[in-house]
């Protein structure tokens, strides 16, 4: 009886401990998964063609959505900042405010979140479906390493695409700020561009790029990991397992992006 009562009291703590252990185990497994995927990028020339295909899928096909999001983000920042700065008679600093907020923070974060929604989710679903339909097993029995075949090209493509798309986001966003701050609200065009170039330091640009690289690795690793181990999920199996894995992949990626953003901002700037 006493034992039973004690067990009942300990049960939530035991559950917490179990969750913590599972989290640590998952993180360790994910890190090993990342190491193996990274190591297999350079295994053969065959990876090059697969990487190019993934660059097309992750990078080129994301350009339109990144253009739209970055343009409107820049326009909103331009609009809000202009009114805020104008109250203090500092509307001439609009260019630097838009550029710094985009290059240091919003560019890398929003680009990563957008690519997670567009490409990350499909990475999880694709690998998850292959897992439940024995295609991953088929690769193994053909002596083709499934991580090398499926994940490594995606990781290489993510490492290449995330920084480039972030740079594109920054450029279009700054242009969006110009559209509202200068063309719509009548700010000075020369001052806008001068402030952009004067206040944007190399350190800001490098920091933004480092962030986007880290986000690329995080998104690809998390999404591919969730798909690859779909069959081990406890909450659902089969097609439902794939959908749960996809949701988990996107949510975990977004949380980790924001977490990593805070850590990197503390370290880099």
């Amino acid at each position, binding site marked *: 009886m006493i034992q039973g009562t004690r067990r009942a009291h300990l049960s939530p703590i035991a559950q917490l401990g179990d969750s913590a252990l599972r989290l640590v185990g998952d993180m360790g497994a994910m890190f090993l998964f990342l190491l193996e995927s990274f190591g297999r990028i350079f295994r053969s020339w*065959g990876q090059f063609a697969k990487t190019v295909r993934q660059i097309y899928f992750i990078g080129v096909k994301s350009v339109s959505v990144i253009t739209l999001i970055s343009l409107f983000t820049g326009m909103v920042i331009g609009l809000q900042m202009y009114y805020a700065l104008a109250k203090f008679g500092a509307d001439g600093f609009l260019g630097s405010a838009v550029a710094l907020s985009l290059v240091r923070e919003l560019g890398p974060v929003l680009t990563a979140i957008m690519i997670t929604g567009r490409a990350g989710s499909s990475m999880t679903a*694709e690998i998850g*479906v*292959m897992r439940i*339909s*024995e*295609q991953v*097993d*088929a*690769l*193994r*029995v*053909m*002596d*083709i390493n499934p991580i090398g075949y499926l994940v490594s090209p995606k990781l290489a493509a993510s490492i290449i695409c995330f920084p480039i798309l972030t740079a594109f986001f920054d450029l279009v966003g700054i242009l969006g700020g110009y559209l509202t701050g200068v063309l719509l609200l009548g700010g000075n065009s020369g001052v806008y561009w001068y402030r952009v170039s004067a206040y944007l330091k190399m350190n800001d640009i490098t920091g933004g790029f480092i962030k986007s690289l880290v986000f690329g690795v995080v998104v690809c690793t998390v999404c591919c990991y969730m798909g690859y181990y779909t069959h081990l999920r406890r909450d659902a199996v089969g097609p439902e397992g794939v959908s749960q894995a996809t949701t988990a992949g996107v949510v975990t990626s977004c949380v980790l992006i924001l977490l990593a953003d805070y850590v990197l901002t503390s370290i880099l700037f």
Partner: protein
Amino acid sequence: MTQQTTPDILLEGLTIGYGEHAVVSNIDATLPGGKISVILGGSGCGKSTLLKHILKLHPALSGRIVIGGHDLAKLDRRGMHCLRQRMGVLFQDGALLGSLTLGDNVALPLREHTRLSEKDVHERVLAKLGLVGLADFHDYFPNELSGGMRKRAGLARAMVMDPPLLFCDEPTSGLDPVTAAELDQLLLELKRRSDMTLVVVSHDLDSMRTIADHVLVLGDARVLFQGSLAELEATQDEYLRRFLDRQAAERTTPRLTMPPLDFKLMKRDCSGYLDEEQ
């Protein structure tokens, strides 16, 4: 690793399953080289699970699997690499990669493991697709084909490296009788021509009677029988006789006693809706 042309497969004290749950225990069997061994049994008896363990897709709970004299558990990465290049596997639904055309699916092992030129790869792929009657479907994607065609394409991919070991998981299930018979003939021809060791998982008795040299019957979480087809046909074991003669087991489930469901109990009343016009 030395290559044996027609390797035997030995299963010694093998217990297979998932996690800690054993599906079949203490399997002691030999699947002889150069012959067609059929693993037979009812649905859910562990046939496909056994195949996945032989392919080392899952670790055995206990016991040994020895292929061509090599203990799978003791093989290092290179040894496993060499062994897998000598295996061809046809999965239950073909397991073709959905993003590749049929030709690219069949060419995949050649492109990954050989130094053949693209021209040679193409020739070999066409030859194997021709063997299963799919040469005209080279540029089709798997989702554009029927289940039977996908299965035949899976067989072409399994054979493309001319492996001495071929494993087939229910090759005739879901196929029409003519296509199933053609596939059986193809397996027999393969064995005759290339002296292969074939392991076929099946519950198709007609197919088993056509192709089997050696039979392993699973049931009740153990091996019920192993031996030649003639020995199996002569068995007097009650369960095996019922299985072979396709007799239903004595009913343990209740008889149909309830009246049929009344249409009026349906949430949307359809009674009389599709009756002839009055």
